[in-house]
């Protein structure tokens, strides 16, 4: 493995974030190597979603630094941050598809605004390709309200991938889905990662999803990186704070 592929694509140092007097992240550290999937485990309200919202710049931390591709997110200008965001995909728990637009328009939306010189044929090709990857080409001209929960998740994944991001942040990708659809989404995540060579941070409570997708698991507890290791390492731990997630 060469040094470029071994280097960290995301490096978080001493990250702190509070809401009023409530401390959410308290000196959190994390390193995500290129091509790896890191799963963040933690109880509800432990700050997992806050963490990935800080990485994408939706929330600004009080202190600490977040390096993505060696650029510090916390010190970028608004325009630089927008440029950086094209390299980071974000899959919302709620999918967040634009409900007044068709599936085609949802997928075209970022393309037409970032790749301004792109031709109509190229847009159509990329949109079709993205939907083919999630086996939903037939939904091209449908509205989001016409699709099921699992289909919406797959379309949201296709939209997330369309700008070819280097890193993808998944916020509970299988929450609210039935077990069969959850397995489909997990397989899709792995398939698209292998195809596009992306790195990921996945937030999940679904231990099947964690087992299937995680190269590294990080346990977020009281705002800190409490434990880090592979699924096997952490599942064999005798620490009660770790064990409770695997029992």
């Amino acid at each position, binding site marked *: 493995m060469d040094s470029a592929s071994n280097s960290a694509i995301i490096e978080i140092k001493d990250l702190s974030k509070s809401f009023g007097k409530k401390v959410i992240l308290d000196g959190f550290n994390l390193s995500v190597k290129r091509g790896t999937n890191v799963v963040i485990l933690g109880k509800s309200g432990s700050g997992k979603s806050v963490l990935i919202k800080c990485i994408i710049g939706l929330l600004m931390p009080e202190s600490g630094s977040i390096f993505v591709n060696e650029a510090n997110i916390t010190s970028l200008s608004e325009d630089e941050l927008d440029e950086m965001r*094209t390299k980071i995909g*974000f899959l*919302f728990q709620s999918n967040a598809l*634009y409900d007044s637009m068709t599936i085609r328009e949802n997928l075209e939306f970022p393309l037409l605004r*970032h790749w301004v010189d792109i031709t109509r044929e190229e847009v159509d090709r990329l949109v079709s390709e993205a939907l083919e990857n999630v086996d939903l080409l037939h939904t091209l001209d449908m509205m989001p309200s016409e699709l099921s929960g699992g289909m919406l998740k797959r379309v949201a994944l296709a939209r997330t991938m369309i700008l070819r991001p280097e890193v993808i942040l998944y916020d509970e990708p299988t929450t609210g889905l039935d077990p069969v659809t959850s397995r489909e989404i997990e397989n899709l995540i792995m398939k698209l990662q292998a195809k596009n060579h992306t790195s990921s941070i996945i937030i999940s409570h679904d231990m099947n999803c964690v087992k299937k997708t995680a190269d590294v698991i990080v346990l977020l507890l009281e705002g800190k990186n409490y434990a880090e290791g592979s699924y096997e390492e952490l599942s064999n731990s005798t620490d009660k704070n770790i064990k409770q997630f695997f029992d």
Partner: protein
Amino acid sequence: MKLFLRFKSFLHETGEVASFTGRFFSVGMRPRYENRELINQCYKIGYLSFPLVGLTSFIMGLVLTMQLRPSLVDYGVESQLPVMVGLAIVREIGPVITALIFAGKIGSSIGAELGSMKVTEQIDAMTVSGIKPYKYLVATRVLATTLMLPLLTILGDGISLFGAYLGVNIRSVTSIDLFFLQVFNSLDFSDVLPAIVKTLFFGFAVGIVGCYKGFSSTKGTQGVGISANSAVVLSSVMIFVIDLLAVQITELLGLN
């Protein structure tokens, strides 16, 4: 204490609206422009509001004429009815009533639409894909309300005057040529221009307040309802405040 907290919250919100307006100019007005969405919003905000504005304007002109007639008859100046109605409609009632109808229809619609997008994370989805929601959602809507309200007011004034013409003809006979000749003879530049210019500000206020309330929506579906409602209330108050300022300014400029 409660009064102090309310005053503090009022000042805070005023600052937030000012900052939101500042972002409209600093972020929303920078290229690349969302021309297609602007045209789409002009259609939704302007064209689709026309039937409601037209109907209310017609009734307003008709009723105003019927209400004014008895008083003018008492003073023996019934012949001045077109002049009085024309001045009232063009200078004040037309712009203000159209703006209030517009605030009710468009202000609430923008507040609810953006509020719903906010609580379902669609605005965040735009942000994380590196697209400025201010440009796509706010700038287009505010520009559309600013451009469409003056047009609706001009059309509304015309329809209102036609309603007034019918109102005059209920009890007497006046030709349409004579009616409009009397109306236009009584109007001059200083009556029409300030009235139209102030509708630009009314439209801007409706757009900014609707977008601000939508963007600051919280607490799920209940929050969306509150956003829609407060967008109408605040923009209606703003219309009266701007109207008051407009009267003072036109008087200072000697246009009254």
